[in-house]
């Protein structure tokens, strides 16, 4: 077994530099790499491009990097929950590339799987397709979208082992598996680092080959964005 375990978030983030491109897993605040984000704030890494479906909220998740003006460019599909984001975008302080969510996921998966680009129908006829190659297949129009290129991918899993194998819980899976192996270095933080051999090989969601560094995360807040409940009757 090839050992991917590192001691802590500091060791996991060795090599991050100003101006790099990062991928960050998560949907809303669900399944985001909380420890890596905190450390990026602490390290004050600047001028970064972030590929992430959302930009967190004003005071949590990627919102922390936005508040701190560390982000030069965001590549996301939805940013509706973040006032500071909208302010920076409308004022032009922040460069933003909005990408359909399925395209965002597949641009990650393409990078992971060695595909240079792919044709998707999403966005055809809209400003998302402007300047891009389009093409007819069987009478339907598609847009050519290139794979992402990133320096680091930061993902968060429920469980993992020193071999880098990952398992996710519920919808906190989202973009995390697609980003593993899609950047030069993939850093996985896990709620629980289990002994090697404990994960069922049939139910590993991300095989360790896609992960370069893994560490036991800590102090997960796992904030809920929209707490919706029903009453017991």
């Amino acid at each position, binding site marked *: 077994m090839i050992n991917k375990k590192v001691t802590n978030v500091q060791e996991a983030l060795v090599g991050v530099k100003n101006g790099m491109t990062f991928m960050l897993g998560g949907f809303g605040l*669900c399944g985001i790499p909380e420890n890596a984000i905190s450390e990026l704030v602490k390290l004050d890494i600047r001028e970064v491009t972030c590929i992430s479906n959302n930009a967190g909220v004003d005071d949590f998740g990627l919102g922390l990097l936005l508040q701190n003006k560390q982000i030069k460019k965001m590549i996301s599909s939805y940013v509706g929950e973040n006032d500071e984001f909208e302010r920076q975008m409308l004022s032009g302080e922040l460069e933003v590339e909005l990408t359909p969510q*399925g395209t965002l996921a597949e641009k990650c998966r393409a990078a992971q799987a060695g595909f240079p680009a792919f044709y998707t129908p999403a966005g055809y006829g809209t400003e998302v397709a402007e300047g891009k190659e389009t093409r007819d297949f069987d009478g339907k129009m598609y847009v050519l979208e290139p794979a992402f290129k990133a320096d680091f991918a930061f993902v968060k899993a429920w469980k993992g082992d020193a071999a880098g194998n990952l398992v996710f819980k519920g*919808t906190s*899976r989202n973009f995390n598996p*697609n980003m593993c192996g899609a950047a030069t270095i993939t850093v996985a933080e896990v709620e629980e680092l289990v002994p090697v051999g404990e994960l069922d090989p049939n139910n590993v969601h991300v095989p360790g080959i896609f992960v370069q560094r893994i560490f036991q995360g800590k102090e997960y807040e796992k904030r809920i964005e929209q707490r*919706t*409940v*029903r009453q017991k009757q």
Partner: protein
Amino acid sequence: MALDKNGIAKRIAQEVQDGFYVNLGIGIPTLVANYVRNDIEVEFQSENGVLGMGPFPFEGEEDADIINAGKQTITTMPGASFFDSSMSFAMIRGKHVHLTILGAMEVSENGDIANWKIPGKMVKGMGGAMDLVASAENIIVAMMHTNKAGESKILKRCSLPLTGVGCVTKVVTNLAVLEVKNNAFHLLERAPGVSVEEIQNATEGTLIVEGEIPEMDV
């Protein structure tokens, strides 16, 4: 009387058929789940990675790791599954989801939809909407017929940046049920007590009215 949001959701629920996999957008569409007949089999997909969504959890049973695309805490039904974003959009792009219900700022008579951006003012992003409208064969839009200033949102041409082109099959508003075909809105039903004239006045796009227009059964 014009419908409220729940009325719109209730009417759209009648479009959901036995054996349908359905994707519900944020807002009014989310309410549709509450009104689907319970003698048919339906599964709700949420593009953040869950199939087989159930109702909201009981208080105290929320799980931060189990949410829908509106970031709301949810539960799952027996037979549910979780998956990654790439597989979620494989379901959508591959036309395995039968019906997409989503909100809109504007729709046009040729089936275009705009719902993600007001240049210079507001940008929320398209989320999964562009993927959904580009692939789904059955797309129902839930929306108000007019904006707060009383201006029609049912248009000849959308003025806002598009989410998709020529894709909307049906529109259910607070005033009417409209089918979109042959470059026109075809009036199918009126909200209870709402006249054809009222609908005509609130509709900027071409409205086709053929024969007697029944009231919605909501």
